[in-house]
């Protein structure tokens, strides 16, 4: 469930904690280590933490119920 933090890249600055519009991270005990994601099911997939992470250590995973539905498009008609 989102977000996913690469622990060896994370510098523990907790910018993500401060910026999340829906408080997915909650209040953290201490900086300097990767934050605990206390409320992952409340992610809005806005990408704020992904954009603003100075270590580029965060990515999102879209949960299965939210997966988009797609099919092959019909063959393109030859024109011109």
């Amino acid at each position, binding site marked *: 469930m989102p977000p996913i933090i690469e622990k060896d890249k994370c510098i523990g600055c907790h910018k993500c904690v401060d910026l999340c519009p829906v408080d997915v991270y909650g209040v953290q005990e201490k900086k300097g280590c990767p934050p605990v994601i206390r409320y992952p099911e*409340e992610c809005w997939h806005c990408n704020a933490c992904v*954009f603003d992470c100075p270590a580029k250590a965060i990515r999102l995973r*879209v949960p299965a119920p939210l997966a*988009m*539905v797609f099919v*092959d*498009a019909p063959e393109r008609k030859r024109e011109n």
Partner: protein
Amino acid sequence: MSGMKQNPPLECDVLVAGGGVAGLMAAIAAADRGAKVIVAEKANSKRSGSGATGNDHFLCYIPEVHGEDPSEFIQEMESSQIGGNNDMDLVRRYVDECFDRVKDWDAWGVGMREHGDWEFNGHAKPGHLKVWLKYAGREQKPIFTREALKRGVTILNHHPFAEVITGEDGTVAGGICVDLTEEIPKMQVIRAKSVVLATGNVNRLFGSRTMGWMFNMAGCPSDVCTGRAAAYRAGARLVNLDMTGMGAGCKYFNRGGKATWIGVYSDIEGKPLGPFVTKPSKEYGDLAGDVWREMFTLKNSQGEPVFMNCSEIQDEDLDYMLWGLTNEGNVATMDHLKEEGFDFKKHMVEFDAKDGGSLGGGIDIDINAGCTVPGLYAAGDETGNFRADMGGAATFGHIAGVSAAEYSQGKENRNAEQMPAAAEWLEKHSQILERPADNSCPSWKELNVAVQQVMSDYCGPYVRSEHMMQTGLTHLKRLQKQVERMCAKNSHEFMRCIEVEDMFLMGELAFYSAMERKETRGRHRRVDYPFTNSLLNQKFVTIEKSDKGPSVGWRDKHK
């Protein structure tokens, strides 16, 4: 009783509830007029609200583009997805001022014309005036935050607004917000001469397509209706709460949006479904999803899924679409599709009318963004008689800030923290933290799911009737007793609990409003009153607090 801890009161001229686009625009405008401004923000204003990581369009009238006479522009605006419930005096003021706000944003560095000149693409009908300016909003929130701070505005991040405090004379004396910066929340009273409510849309009152995944929403799921609820409790009039609607966009992933997609709504064989376009068009998009929401339910009932078909898009237009999606907060959508092996030229993605309804309407404002309570203002998605999304937030945010600053001049701050509203709030909300946080008391989540069920099933966009609504309202009121027994063990849960309180109030007011309109109008589908009564054209349902409870009334739409 020990009670919730309190911070010492703070003081300002203009208190802004919510640091979204409308709130920051209000704060900037008020500070420019010399007011001392505090913004109470639920998260962090750099990335909060429905504009957190970008938006796509800004409804904007530019005389050089649209001609000196704005009447055709206004006509197009009223027939678009945001039209219908707008007071026309507010529309005219909007049209007069919106380009000034676009110019402000351009000057501050928001991407208002990233391809050289103002461009009006998408949300458009062939042969009609194009009214939606396409812009790149990805960095808008950090920019507005910087502009506010530059002007001396104090932004209290992680301090959601909760309540308006009025004095004995009924005028605004301040507000209450909650300090969430530590594990246990604290009450924060702010003395203020005026309050601007800008807490955004109502996003978790009705269910999403993925019931249970409550935060799967197009708009910010932390925006729930706080300002509307606080305005009502302070005595302000709300309007158009009987109206409902539904969004459209990518099926299941509700973040997806629709307006930036350059494709054609098609059936599985690639046959276009709407009357507007037959090939992907950067200029028009496909308006069918904006103005024909029945397309989805109708086609589904015929056994046909509806697809967004971009397969015939030109390379240049595909680049433009990807630029648009990147700048309107849809990077997660693109990453997801990429991971799944989606190819815009080979596949088509299913679209859908994606939610169990929404709450139309909100706070009733006058042409200066004033509410019916002196000293109280509202702007943005929060208002019930004007809607223009980001442009509305920008333009009426600015107007609200100017009005609040002018109102505050020459007034004195009062001891809001000693007023009865403050003591009542403290007593009621201390209990949320004092109740045992075990299974003996309901959690916010339980009640949030419950209210979504009631609203979608009994007051939603599919079937409404006196009997359905009577039944739903009875159930809602029974559930409300459980709201009074909610518990929270920390700041996060406390924030969600007060959101749920407000949602139950707004749900109740929506039921009363919808019961009053005994006709069918748009998505307000009264199966017991199936006709659209032309005597009720241009008439709005209002609701305000009285000694006997919610008092429902009517007013004319302003010409």
